[in-house]
C-alpha cells in the first residue's frame, strides 16, 4: 500500500455514520466468511483427488484467495480511513477559508475607517469650529454676543458636515469633534446631540492618543471598550484636528468616529453559516471574534457565546501568537463535539489590525454528513473518480480494490477449471468457488459504491468551496464599491468643488485641483478625479499631467456626466459600468459620479459633476487573486476567477487567455441567471476542459445596490 499515514479509522468512533458502520460490518464479515470456505476447499482437495499435484494446485488457489481476502480486509480499513480523512481535510479547508474570509472582511473594513478619519479631520468646517471655540475660551474678555453667534454658526455647520458624513457613510453610530480640554463641540447623531455636546471625554484613551499623533497621517484606534459617548461598547477611531487643516499643523483638538462594529460584524459573522428552511442558523454552528485577551467582542449567537466573556474554547485557540496563524482542533463547545477553526488577524495593507481572532465552530458530525443535494451534474462516477478532485492516494486505493477484485475472480475461474478437470468428483468445488466469486463481487461492489459516494461528496464540497470563493469575490467588490460610493458622495459636497463652479475663477479651479490632488494622493485606487461644469467641460482634475489633455475634452455625452447632472441630493451618486472609455484610453474604465450642488447643500441645484475614475485593474486584481481556489495554500493549476457584467461579458479576470476581458463566456444557465445574492455551482466545459464552477450574484452592500455583476470561480477537473 502506498498509504504511509497511521490509520486513524476506528469503527467505534462516534463520528462514523450508521450507514458506514453497516457497510464496514458487511464487507468485513463477508470477507471473514471466505476463510472457512477456503478451509473447506482444502479438505475437499484431499477427498476428491489422490493426485498430489492437483491437491497442491487447489491448496495454492485457496491460499491465494485467503491472501486476497486478508488484503481486502486491510484495504477496507485504509479505505474507510481515507474516506474520513478526505472529508475531514476538505471540510477543514473550507472552514479555514471561511474563518479567514470573515477576519479579512472586517480588516478591510477597518482599513477603510482609518483612511476616513484622517481625511475628515482636514475638513475646513471642523478646524474652523474648533479654532473659534479655543479662541473664545482663551480670551474671556471678548465674550461678546457676536462671538457667541459666530461659534454657534460654526458649531451648526460642523454638526451639519458631520451629519453629511454619517449620511454618506452609513457605518457610523456617531462622529464627534472635541476641543483640547476634551469637551465635545459638535457631533453627527442628532438624536444624541443634547446628551453628547459639552460632554468631557478627556479621560478617554482615544482622545488622549489622538492629541499625541505626530501629523495628519497618524491615527489611533481604540479597541472595543466602553465610552461615555454611548451606552454600548464602542470601537473608536481618532486623530488630531490641526490648525488650518494643515497635516503638519499645530494640534487644536481631536476627532473621534464611533464605528458600528457590532452591526457590521453581525453581517459578516452570520454570513457563510448554514441556515435551516426557516432561515435560522443551524444549531451548533457559531462564528465570533475575540480580542487580544481572548474575550468575545461579537458573536453570531450572543446567548451561547456572549460578548464580553472569555470564549468557551480550548486555551490553544484563545492564545494564537502570530498574525495570520490558524489553529484547527476538535473539542466540546457548548456541550457539543465540534470542529473549531481559529484564524488570527494579519491586518490588511498598511492596517496592522488589533490582534483579533476569528473563530468558526461547527458540529464535528457536519464534516462527515452526506451531502443532501443529489444533483446530476452530467458526470459519471467513473469520470469523477478519475478527476483531479480525487486525491491520488484515493485513486490508488480504488485501483487496488479493482485489482483484488480481478484477482479473486481469476482465482475462482481457475479453481472452477481445475474442479472441472477432476470430473464428477470436482463438482463439489463449484459452489465453493461460486461463493468466493459472489463474496468478492459483493464486497468490492460495496467499496466501489462507497468510493462513488466519496467522490460525489468531494465534488459537493469542492463546489461549495468555489461558491464560497465566488461569494467572497462579489462581496469584496460590493463592499469596496460601497466605500467608493460613500467617498464620491462626500467629496462632491467639498467646499472646493462647489466654490470652483459657483465662482469660476482660475484661482478657484486651481484650489479645486489641489484639493482633488490631496484626495487622490491618499488613495491608491483612482486614476484621476475630475470636475466638469454644467456644459461638460472639465475645469479641474487631480493629476496635473492629464490637465492639458482633459481641458480640451467635452464629456457632456458621457453616461457618468449625464447621470451626475440628474442628481439633486447629496446622498445620491451615479456610476458608469465598466466599459471602454475614450476619456482614459483604457479598455476597462469604471467611473463614479456625484452631483456638485449649489453652496454644497444637501439638496439643490446641480452646478456640475465630480467624476472619479477607478484604477480598475489595480483595484480588482488583488480581490480576484485572493479568491482563487487553493490546495494547501497554492493556487490550483488552471483555476480562475472573473466577474461578468449583466450583459454576460467578462469585465475582470485572472485568466486573460481562457476567460478574457470582453469575452462572453458560455457558462451553465443556472450560473448566469442568478437572482441578487444567490449562489450556484455546477460543471461546464470550455476550452476543451471540464471545469467545476461556483458563482454568486451581487446583492449590493448597504446603499450600493450593485451593478448586476456575477463573480465566477472555476477550476479544471480533468
Amino acid at each position: 500500500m502506498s498509504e504511509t499515514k497511521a490509520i486513524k479509522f476506528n469503527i467505534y468512533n462516534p463520528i462514523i455514520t450508521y450507514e458506514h458502520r453497516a457497510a464496514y460490518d458487511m464487507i468485513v464479515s463477508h470477507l471473514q466468511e471466505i476463510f472457512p470456505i477456503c478451509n473447506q476447499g482444502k479438505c475437499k482437495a484431499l477427498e476428491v483427488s489422490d493426485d498430489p499435484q492437483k491437491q497442491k494446485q487447489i491448496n495454492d488457489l485457496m491460499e491465494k484467495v485467503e491472501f486476497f481476502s486478508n488484503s481486502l480486509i486491510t484495504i477496507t480499513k485504509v479505505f474507510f480511513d481515507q474516506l474520513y480523512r478526505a472529508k475531514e481535510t476538505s471540510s477543514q479547508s473550507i472552514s479555514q477559508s471561511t474563518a479567514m474570509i470573515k477576519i479579512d472582511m472586517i480588516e478591510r473594513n477597518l482599513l477603510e475607517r482609518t483612511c476616513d478619519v484622517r481625511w475628515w479631520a482636514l475638513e475646513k468646517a471642523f478646524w474652523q469650529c474648533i479654532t473659534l471655540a479655543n479662541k473664545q475660551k482663551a480670551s474671556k474678555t471678548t465674550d461678546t454676543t457676536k462671538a457667541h453667534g459666530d461659534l454657534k454658526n460654526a458649531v451648526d455647520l460642523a454638526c451639519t458636515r458631520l451629519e453629511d458624513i454619517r449620511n454618506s457613510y452609513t457605518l457610523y453610530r456617531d462622529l464627534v469633534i472635541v476641543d483640547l480640554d476634551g469637551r465635545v463641540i459638535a457631533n453627527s447623531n442628532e438624536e444624541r446631540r443634547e446628551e453628547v455636546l459639552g460632554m468631557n471625554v478627556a479621560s478617554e484613551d482615544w482622545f488622549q492618543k489622538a492629541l499625541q499623533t505626530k501629523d495628519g497621517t497618524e491615527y489611533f484606534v481604540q479597541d472595543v471598550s466602553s465610552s461615555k459617548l454611548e451606552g454600548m461598547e464602542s470601537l473608536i477611531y481618532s486623530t488630531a484636528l490641526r490648525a488650518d487643516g494643515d497635516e503638519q499643523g499645530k494640534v487644536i483638538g481631536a476627532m473621534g468616529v464611533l464605528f458600528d462594529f457590532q452591526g457590521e460584524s453581525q453581517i459578516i459573522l452570520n454570513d457563510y453559516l448554514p441556515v435551516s428552511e426557516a432561515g435560522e442558523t443551524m444549531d451548533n454552528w457559531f462564528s465570533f471574534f475575540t480580542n487580544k485577551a481572548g474575550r468575545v467582542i461579537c458573536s453570531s449567537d450572543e446567548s451561547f457565546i456572549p460578548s464580553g466573556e472569555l470564549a468557551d474554547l480550548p486555551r490553544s485557540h484563545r492564545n494564537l501568537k502570530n498574525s495570520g496563524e490558524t489553529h484547527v482542533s476538535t473539542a466540546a463547545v457548548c456541550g457539543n463535539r465540534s470542529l473549531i477553526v481559529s484564524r488570527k488577524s494579519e491586518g490588511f495593507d498598511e492596517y496592522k489590525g488589533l490582534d483579533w481572532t476569528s473563530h468558526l465552530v461547527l458540529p464535528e458530525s457536519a464534516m462527515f454528513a452526506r451531502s443532501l443535494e443529489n444533483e446530476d451534474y452530467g458526470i459519471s462516477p467513473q469520470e469523477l473518480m478519475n478527476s483531479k478532485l480525487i486525491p491520488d492516494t484515493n485513486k490508488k486505493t480504488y485501483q487496488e480494490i479493482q485489482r483484488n477484485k480481478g484477482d479473486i475472480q481469476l482465482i475462482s475461474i481457475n479453481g472452477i477449471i481445475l474442479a472441472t478437470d477432476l470430473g464428477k468428483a470436482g463438482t463439489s468445488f463449484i459452489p465453493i468457488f461460486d461463493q468466493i466469486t459472489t463474496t468478492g463481487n459483493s464486497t468490492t461492489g460495496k467499496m466501489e459504491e462507497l468510493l462513488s459516494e466519496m467522490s460525489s461528496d468531494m465534488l459537493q464540497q469542492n463546489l461549495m468551496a468555489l461558491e464560497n470563493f465566488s461569494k467572497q469575490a462579489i462581496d469584496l467588490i460590493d463592499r469596496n464599491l460601497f466605500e467608493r460610493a460613500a467617498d464620491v458622495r462626500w467629496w462632491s459636497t467639498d467646499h472646493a468643488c462647489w466654490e470652483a463652479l459657483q465662482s469660476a475663477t482660475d484661482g478657484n479651479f486651481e484650489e479645486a485641483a489641489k484639493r482633488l490632488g490631496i484626495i487622490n494622493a491618499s488613495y491608491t485606487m483612482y486614476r484621476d478625479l475630475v470636475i466638469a461644469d454644467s456644459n461638460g467641460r472639465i475645469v479641474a482634475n487631480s493629476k496635473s499631467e492629464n490637465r492639458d489633455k482633459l481641458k480640451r475634452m467635452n464629456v457632456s455625452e458621457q453616461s457618468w456626466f449625464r447621470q451626475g447632472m440628474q442628481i439633486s441630493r447629496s446622498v445620491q451618486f451615479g456610476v458608469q459600468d465598466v466599459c471602454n472609455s475614450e476619456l482614459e484610453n483604457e479598455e476597462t474604465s469604471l467611473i463614479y459620479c456625484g452631483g456638485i450642488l449649489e453652496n454644497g447643500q444637501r439638496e439643490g441645484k446641480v452646478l456640475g459633476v465630480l467624476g472619479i475614475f477607478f484604477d480598475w485593474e489595480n483595484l480588482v486584481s488583488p480581490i480576484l487573486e485572493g479568491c482563487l481556489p487553493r490546495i494547501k495554500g497554492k493556487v490550483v493549476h488552471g483555476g480562475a476567477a472573473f466577474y461578468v457584467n449583466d450583459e454576460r461579458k467578462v469585465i475582470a479576470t485572472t485568466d486573460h487567455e481562457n476567460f478574457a476581458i470582453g469575452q462572453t463566456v458560455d457558462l451553465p444557465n443556472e450560473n448566469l441567471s442568478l437572482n441578487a445574492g444567490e449562489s450556484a455551482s455546477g460543471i461546464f466545459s470550455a476550452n476543451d476542459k471540464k471545469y467545476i464552477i461556483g458563482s454568486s450574484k451581487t446583492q449590493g452592500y448597504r446603499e450600493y445596490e450593485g451593478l448586476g455583476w456575477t463573480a465566477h470561480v472555476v477550476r479544471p477537473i480533468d
Partner: protein
Amino acid sequence: MLYSTFYLGETKMAVPIPAILEIGRSFKFHSVRGSPEVIDGLINLRGKVVTVINSGMAFGGERVLSADDSRIFIFKNNSELREVADSDFEMETAPDNIGIHVDRIADVIRVEKEELQAVPSNMIHPFYKFVVRRDDSFIIILEPAKILNLNENEDLLS
C-alpha cells in the same frame, strides 16, 4: 456444461471451461519476427511455450492491448483435453497449447444442451458455434478449434 465468458467490445462470448487450461494475467510476450499480426507473441507457462492470439485482431477489430483488465485464456492441447477426468464430451482444441488475449473476462455460466441455439444465418462466422440467450442478451459460444487453428484460416494469417 460450464463456460467462461469474456467481452470483445460489447459482445459477450464464451468458451467451454473443460477446454481451458488456465486463465492468466500479466504474461511477458516474446515477439517473433515474421509472425502474423494476429499473434501477440509467445509466453512461457511453467515451461510450456504458448502462442497467444490477439482476439481483437482475430475478429478483424482493434488490437487488444495489455491492461489491468486484460486476460489470457490458455487452452489445453488436444492430448491434455483427452485426459480430463470423466470426459463425456467431444471437443478439440489444437495440437499445441494456444492462448487468446481478451479485453476483460466476465462470469462463469452453466449452459444446458437444450439452450444451445444455432447461429442465425446472417451472423455466420467461422469461429461461432452456438448462440445462447441469457435474460435480454445473447452470448456467442465459440468453437475453440477454429480460432486456435489459425493456420487453417489463411485470410487471418495473411
